[in-house]
């Protein structure tokens, strides 16, 4: 059993956050999706179909790996939840498979998606290839360059990849373009949103589909250590791997720590640390924290990791931050890259740069985290070797 939808009120409100701030043309589509998901979440056939795919196709459950040599730099027992070993190399497939099944149920022959690092695009292209759905992925121009390997992966999987040159050429611009496509093609098309943000019901659907991370890890770590972790860490872009890892621990006495991208440093202004400097506003369909100027214009972000290079964050994280249930810490490019190399050299695991932010967060906070620390390793680093090769000067003589 891998599909663990949470019990919710179905309104899509997380305290004062969330909502459906979309153009009227999309209201019918998100309402249709909310109804379809409500039906699916209680439907045994849907659960069976999804559980079977997650087991036999994706390879769930993913392992929990203790990393003692890496842990020397933290000062606690450290366990990694290995979403990097999920098929396609990240947690993103959990969501893509679930929503692709939903698209089939809704009778939509076409799926569109946005992608930053390309991992959500690859996961979506994969699910669509598997289920015979037409797939178009929007990706910022800058991201198509720094994640070129994933562009090739999506294309060999049969997806059309559209490079988006507008704005900063990153994730937010890809989302804008996907929304424009959706408005025009909503009858035939499901927008397979990749993170726990956007208008209701996306934050709820994506969270429910990613809860498997935390549900599995919670049981695995208890079996291994006889206790719950003192802290759970995850990187936060839009927030899907983090909410999936955190949610099953909400009622426990466990610290929940999101690591956001501080780029060159929060003080330099070149970062994507939404909680460090953001204000509450409305972007991409929901009320949440965003990086914006005094006029409410979205600020261009910077992060070495394409998957965290986003000015916003999902509404449930904003809620957890406001009520003090989760904490969010900034991690710089340099700290993340150091942690990436550290894990590779101490444990033989090359993490995604996104996930390296969570590793770096644990190194930074260190022994104050407690005795047992769980880190969600959201993805593997193959896609980042070009960036890492340049950063560490790994190629050449």
């Amino acid at each position, binding site marked *: 059993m891998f599909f663990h939808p949470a019990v919710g009120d179905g309104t899509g409100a997380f305290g004062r956050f969330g909502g459906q701030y979309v153009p*009227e043309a999309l209201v*019918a589509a998100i309402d249709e999706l909310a109804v379809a998901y409500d039906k699916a979440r209680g439907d045994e056939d849907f659960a069976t179909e999804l559980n079977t795919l997650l087991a036999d196709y994706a390879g769930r459950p993913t392992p929990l790996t203790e990393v003692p040599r890496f842990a020397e730099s933290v000062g606690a027992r450290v366990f990694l939840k290995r979403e990097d070993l999920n098929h396609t190399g990240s947690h993103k497939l959990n969501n893509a498979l679930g929503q692709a099944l939903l698209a089939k149920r809704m009778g939509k022959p076409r799926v569109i998606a946005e992608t930053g690092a390309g991992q959500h695009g690859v996961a979506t292209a994969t699910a669509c290839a598997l289920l015979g759905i037409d797939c178009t992925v929007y990706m910022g121009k800058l991201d198509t360059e720094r994640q070129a390997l994933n562009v090739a992966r999506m294309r060999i999987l049969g997806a059309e990849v559209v490079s988006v040159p507008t704005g900063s050429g990153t994730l937010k611009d890809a989302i804008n373009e996907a929304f424009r496509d959706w*408005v025009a093609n909503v009858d035939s098309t499901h927008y397979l949103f990749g993170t726990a943000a956007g208008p209701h019901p996306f934050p709820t659907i994506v969270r429910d589909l990613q809860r498997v991370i935390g549900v599995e890890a919670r049981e695995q770590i208890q079996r291994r250590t006889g206790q719950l972790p003192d802290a759970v860490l995850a990187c936060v872009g839009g927030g899907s791997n983090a909410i999936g890892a955190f949610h099953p621990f909400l009622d426990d006495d466990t610290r929940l720590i999101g690591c956001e991208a501080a780029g060159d440093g929060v003080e330099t202004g070149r970062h994507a640390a939404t909680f460090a400097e953001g204000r509450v506003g409305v972007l991409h369909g929901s009320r949440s924290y965003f990086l914006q100027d005094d*006029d*409410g214009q979205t600020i261009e972000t910077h992060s070495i990791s394409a998957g965290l290079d986003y000015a916003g964050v999902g509404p449930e994280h904003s809620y957890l931050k406001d009520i003090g249930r989760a904490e969010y810490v900034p991690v710089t490019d340099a700290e993340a890259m150091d942690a990436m190399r550290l894990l590779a050299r101490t444990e033989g695991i090359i993490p995604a740069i996104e996930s390296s932010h969570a590793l770096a967060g644990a190194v930074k906070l260190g022994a104050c985290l407690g005795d047992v620390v769980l880190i969600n390793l959201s993805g593997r680093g193959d896609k980042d070797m070009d960036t890492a090769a340049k950063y560490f000067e790994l190629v050449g003589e």
Partner: protein
Amino acid sequence: MSSFSGFSRTEKTLVGYLPAGFPTVDGAVRTLTAMAESGCGALEIGLPYTDPVMDGPAIQTAATKALENGTRTEDVLRTVERVAAATGVPIFVMTYWNPIEQYGIDRFAQRLSDAGGAGCVLPDLPVQHSLPWREVADKHDLAGVFVAAPSSTDKRVAEIARASTGFVYAASTMGVTGMRSEVSGQDLVARIRAATELPVFVGLGVSNGRQAAEVASFADGVIVGSAIVRRMLDAPDVDTGIAEIRTLCAELADGTRRLVGSP
């Protein structure tokens, strides 16, 4: 304070759109003034925004230019003030929601009213989230125009009509702003009319006099944006752009007021 007291349902209205700050703040004021002089009975002044999800390439490019020029919300309000003073036609600010919220909803409404604006068109504020706007708009005597789409259910059309003041905006098609070879919207207009006495204006896709005439045969007003913006984008300089836009608006106005099918 605006002198706007509502549109006629017997006379057809051409509404022209241009973002403030495009091609420059002064250039936009001159262009908007020329638009009113050449047949626009009302104007929509766009508040340039970084993430315009309802706009196609022409308006995206213009908004980006305006932002690169340093256009701020204050500049938009001053543009409204100058154009209102120069033209006397009803002026609506067309804006995504977040800039209003960040400026302060009440403060924005107060300033817009002081500037002589008639109200706002709010393309990404669905009616279920519109109460905060409607409360302050009432207080400052501003109109709030919401968009109905072909995909809106009859129940939502009724809610949109009830929430709107000034006019109801009927999106001719499912899609973003931009020029289209065919423009429809007749069904939606009929559904809106069943729900309200307010005038119904149709926007999205109209770019020439023929289309304006077609739309005016079933709607009370015709809204044109991308075709106007495109003239300025393609012009070698502002004066040429303004001259082109004058010609276009005259053609559109002629189409809007011509009764298709009448002898």
